[in-house]
């Protein structure tokens, strides 16, 4: 019979009190895991949303384009640029060349500012959301000349539909106003309504012809195999291309708000864990102290028998360990089940549509459960739980046998 057996039995001496601590630990661990997963889902959604919505992992522009996205600031020889860059990209990278300028879209009834995006449909489908987002009509084909795909929300705003014409007007490379009529062939739906209202996709050759750009493009977007390769790859490509004509930016630089939220995320999770633990910790200390004071005579006996203070501390920590372990097991299981359950439908934030869009959040949040978050939550509870249990354990070890045995 070992000390652990005694510790295990001791925690069930007062099942109601043990249940109180267990419930606190279970709720604590469950909420830590769920909130971390949901936060990660929100931020992951923001990152994926941002990257998919034409940002990609990297963008290459003429060096003045980011500050002034006009047709004058174009990459004149994109083929040569990709010839230099492609061998230095990680394996399985994809890229797409685009014309991207501000334009005015109009029909008989309405007009509004949009961003005209001239794309190579096949290449673009591998880089951004547009290839899989057309929900009515069809996507662009490489041999299209006057087709246009717009967002569903823009079509509703314009009271138009597939098959109808839409005029796009912008400034061309000669500084003149250029306009062209396109026929709507498809409608796309995006995570955010603002995206649907903002972008109008046409074949890149049509855009180049309309804007008299010849073979020039506004940007080259690159999709890497992983999000975290972007910064290092951007630095490397910038060195390769030099800094006088072209600028290479990572998604972190292009989406500063998302990057800031990502950085805040770890601090937020840490603070959340700490707050949960502080609330739980008071409960653990309180109930463990009650348990210790109720057993003062027993600790007096153990000291009288010759048990060292260190072993008394160890036996109380063992009791806390078993309670925490049990709570962590159930809390983690509940967290995993909650995550699994939410993985089917997600949490629908449509009711907060405008607020969520402003923050760059997706409409439906799916939790992302990582082993390190689950392990982190459990370790925080275990380590801090044992630490706060040291106070009542030390109190028990300090009783002198005489004062403890005389306690009624």
């Amino acid at each position: 019979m070992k000390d652990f057996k005694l510790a295990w039995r001791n925690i069930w001496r007062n099942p109601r009190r043990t249940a109180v601590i267990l419930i606190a630990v279970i709720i604590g661990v469950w909420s830590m895991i769920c909130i971390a997963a949901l936060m990660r889902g929100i931020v992951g959604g923001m990152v994926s949303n941002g990257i998919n919505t034409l940002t990609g992992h990297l963008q290459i522009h003429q060096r003045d384009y980011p500050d002034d996205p006009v047709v004058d600031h174009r990459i004149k020889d994109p083929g040569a640029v990709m010839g230099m860059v492609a061998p230095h990209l990680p394996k399985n990278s994809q890229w797409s060349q685009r014309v991207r300028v501000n334009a005015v879209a109009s029909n008989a009834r309405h007009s509004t500012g949009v961003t005209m995006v001239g794309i190579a449909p096949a290449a673009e489908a591998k880089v951004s959301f547009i290839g899989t987002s057309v929900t009515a009509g069809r996507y662009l084909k490489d041999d299209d000349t006057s087709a246009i795909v717009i967002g569903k929300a823009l079509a509703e705003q314009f009271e138009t539909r597939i098959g109808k014409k839409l005029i796009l007007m912008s400034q061309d490379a000669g500084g003149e106003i250029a306009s062209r009529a396109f026929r709507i062939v498809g409608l796309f739906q995006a995570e955010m309504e603002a995206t649907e209202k903002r972008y109008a996709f046409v074949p890149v050759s049509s855009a180049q012809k309309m804007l008299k750009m010849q073979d020039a493009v506004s940007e080259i977007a690159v999709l890497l195999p992983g999000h975290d390769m972007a910064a290092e790859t951007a630095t490397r490509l910038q060195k390769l291309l030099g800094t006088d004509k072209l600028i290479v930016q990572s998604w972190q630089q292009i989406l500063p708000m998302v990057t800031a939220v990502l950085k805040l995320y770890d601090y937020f999770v840490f603070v959340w864990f700490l707050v949960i633990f502080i609330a739980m910790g008071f409960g653990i200390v309180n109930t463990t102290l009650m348990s210790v004071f109720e057993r003062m005579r027993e600790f007096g006996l153990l000291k009288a028998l010759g048990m060292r203070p260190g072993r008394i501390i160890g036996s109380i920590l063992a009791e806390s360990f078993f309670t925490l372990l049990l709570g962590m097991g159930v809390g983690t299981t509940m967290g995993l089940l909650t995550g699994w359950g939410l993985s089917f439908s997600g949490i629908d934030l449509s009711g907060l549509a405008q607020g969520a869009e402003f923050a760059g959040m997706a409409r439906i949040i799916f939790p992302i459960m990582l082993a390190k978050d689950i392990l982190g939550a459990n370790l925080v509870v275990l380590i801090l739980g044992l630490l706060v249990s040291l106070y009542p354990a030390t109190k028990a070890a300090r009783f002198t046998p005489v004062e403890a045995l005389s306690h009624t």
Partner: protein
Amino acid sequence: MSIVACHDVTKTYRQGKVEVTALKEIQLEIEAGGFVALAGPSGSGKTTLLNLIGGLDRADAGRIVVSGNDYSELKDSQMAELRLHHIGFIFQSYNLIPVLSAVENVEYVMLLQGVTAAERRQRARRILDDVGLADKYHRRPAELSGGQQQRVAVARAIVSNPSIVLADEPTANLDSKTGEGLLALMRDMNSRRNVTFIFSTHDKMVMAYARRVVTIKDGCIADDRMKAA
């Protein structure tokens, strides 16, 4: 040769603003194998003296030497070690660990001593047989009578092969018949194993069983009587 020697032992307690002298310059020697009762009314200091002999508390003045160990030269950890290996305790209220069975309560001392599991089990069962609890190994204290619990306490005190067993009012919570049975048992242990028993008591039955009665009154030894063999 004395197994316990107290020289000018004094102990004072503070109760609020008042200082109470529980023991005043006690001189006492107890031979090995003794069966000694420290008798006296409540508040006489007998339990205090027992606690000092057992190393559960420290004297404010004087020297206590037990089994050749001078307590004034021992640190708390060394006192704990001495209690573990040389001194057994029996308390008025049994003080068994409620979540352990009879045999586990008896084994616990040997667990602290580092005895192997097989030896612990064997010795615990044998001693429980000796005290007449052969069929109660796996009963928890709540399932035992007062007399049976005290027998388990006696078994626990003896099983670690101590030189001395200190018993504080061991029969106080027992009826006279049960108490007498317990005393007979302890007397038998004393004879067979040559373990020194020192009681703190105001029970006349315990005094009757003792071979030596040391009467303490107001913190001093008032009388010290050895009975004829």
